[in-house]
């Protein structure tokens, strides 16, 4: 088991290295540097600035310097927020994004699995149709439109929830619903089809024939076996949360990492873009690893080679 975890950890290293190299390459082939303003800087000042950020060195030296700093966990200085490190900015914004992420993850898992179970057990009833409708809308509805609808109804029409910022639990409700809605729809869809699949298996029929109580069959046999595919989707769903957070943080003016990423892109703040991209990759690699491990725990048939 420990060897399995170690191997999965090691697999993440080449992925991270590839992403680091690619982002570095991308950022250095782009025409237009971060210090090309509309108002031209005098050449001496520009040279000084570039020397400070090591932009005057040959490109391979810059790359080695960058990798060396990465090993130490140092993502470099921000070009835009003078005097601040990318590490500092991430340290300030990351907790906010994580709060948002965890909160919406909870919402999506709870509503998704519950509605999926209800629909799967009562297939071809009103509940089932409603869940399918909810799932299709959830997949089709862009999150900025959902956010607009939520803000219009709960902040402007009924003034019960704040439309922006991040100051306490009341501010978390609308953004978390927005971010969790699409994943909830995916989870509901998957849970439903997985339950329908399991409920028609022979061993469930056997359990029924034995005369077990319906509730026991559902909770002990059906749910346990149908939860597997739902666990596997959590890896890809992390990506949905990450990209969703850009939009949600932008709309609700939440000071999280996603919003800083968008600003960094508009400002061409390269170290910031590279740093945030790496953090996102790290999150995704780690989630996929956790999902694999959980999966191996849940299904003893999978061997951790």
């Amino acid at each position, binding site marked *: 088991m420990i060897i399995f975890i170690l191997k999965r950890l090691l697999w993440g290293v080449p*992925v991270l290295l*590839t*992403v680091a190299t690619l*982002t570095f390459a*991308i*950022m250095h*082939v*782009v025409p237009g540097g971060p210090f090309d303003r509309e108002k031209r800087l005098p050449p001496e000042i520009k040279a000084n600035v570039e020397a400070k950020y090591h932009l005057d060195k040959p490109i391979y030296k810059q790359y080695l310097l960058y990798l060396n700093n990465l090993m130490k966990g140092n993502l470099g200085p921000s070009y835009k927020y003078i005097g601040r490190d990318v590490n500092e900015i991430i340290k300030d914004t990351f907790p906010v994004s994580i709060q948002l992420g965890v909160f919406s993850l909870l919402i999506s898992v709870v509503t998704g699995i519950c509605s999926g179970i209800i629909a799967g057990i009562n297939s071809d009833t009103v509940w089932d149709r409603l869940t399918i409708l909810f799932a*299709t*809308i959830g*997949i*089709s*509805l*862009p*999150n*900025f*439109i959902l956010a*607009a*609808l939520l*803000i*219009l109804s709960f902040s*402007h029409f009924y003034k019960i929830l704040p439309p922006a910022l991040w100051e306490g639990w009341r501010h978390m409700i609308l953004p978390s619903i927005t971010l969790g809605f699409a994943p909830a729809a995916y989870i509901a*869809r998957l849970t439903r*089809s997985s339950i329908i699949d399991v409920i028609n298996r022979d061993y469930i029929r056997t359990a029924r024939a034995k005369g077990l109580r319906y509730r026991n069959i559902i909770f002990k046999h059906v749910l346990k076996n149908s939860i597997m595919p739902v666990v596997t989707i959590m*890896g890809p769903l992390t*990506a*949905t949360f*990450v*990209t969703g957070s*850009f*939009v949600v943080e*932008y*709309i609700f003016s939440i000071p999280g990492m996603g919003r800083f*990423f*968008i600003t960094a*892109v*508009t400002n*061409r703040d390269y170290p910031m*873009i590279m740093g945030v*991209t790496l953090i*996102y*990759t790290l999150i*995704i*690699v780690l989630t*996929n690893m956790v999902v694999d491990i959980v999966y191996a725990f849940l299904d003893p048939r999978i061997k951790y080679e």
Partner: protein
Amino acid sequence: MNKSAIISCLFLIIVSTSSLLSPWIAPYPFDLQNSDELLQGPSLKHIMGTDKLGRDLFSRILYGARISISVGILTALSSLIIGTVYGGVSGYAGGRIDNFMMRAVDVIYSLPDLLMIILITVIIGRGWVSIFLALSIVGWVTVARLIRGELLRLKEFQFVESVRAIGAGHMRIFFIHLLPNTIGPLIVTLTFRCASAILSESTLSFIGLGLAPPFASWGTLANDGWGSVKFYPHLTIFPGTAILLTMLALNFLGDGLRDAFDPHRKV
């Protein structure tokens, strides 16, 4: 065939033809400013109201459909071509080549689409072409995985062995015998690819990283209205509804096609 898929298909046909014909059927040019009619709500003269420069929103949405829908269709087509070639070679060759080619796909697949698209648009700049390129670079991966999986399955069938016995070459086996058998799942995937391209484009434009004015896709229009959503909600609601309806139609169509092509697997 189910009703919702047919209705969706009709809806999509109507939207795309009317967007193609927009220079003739739109009531006003998309960039005609009228300073006497700023920020009006929906009325008989402007059925969806006007924006802050007095431009007719309905006309702008019609023209915007051209961009949004063409981005979707073109991306789906280019993903189809790249994905089929890549996935086809990988699945047909199998073994070590397949293993190597798929690792590259796995890396791209595990990263979030929007993140990659944003990074790519940083390199090639903003605009229609760069969005199209970025969406294609990200989009072919799904198609490649699908085609590869199908080919791995199909090439074990006996009909492949028999045509090989007759003396058919690799190209002939691949294009005449294997590829046509993947058409069902391929069309379904393309429908969903189209939907997700439209969604990514509108999201990108909404957060201000998409198309630059005066061109306006639905996402750009929604973003334009966003600043004053509290007082003029129609500027966000109408473009938003256009996106939502198109997405719903594509998803219903995709579901319907999947059921039609694969009657065993009803989801």
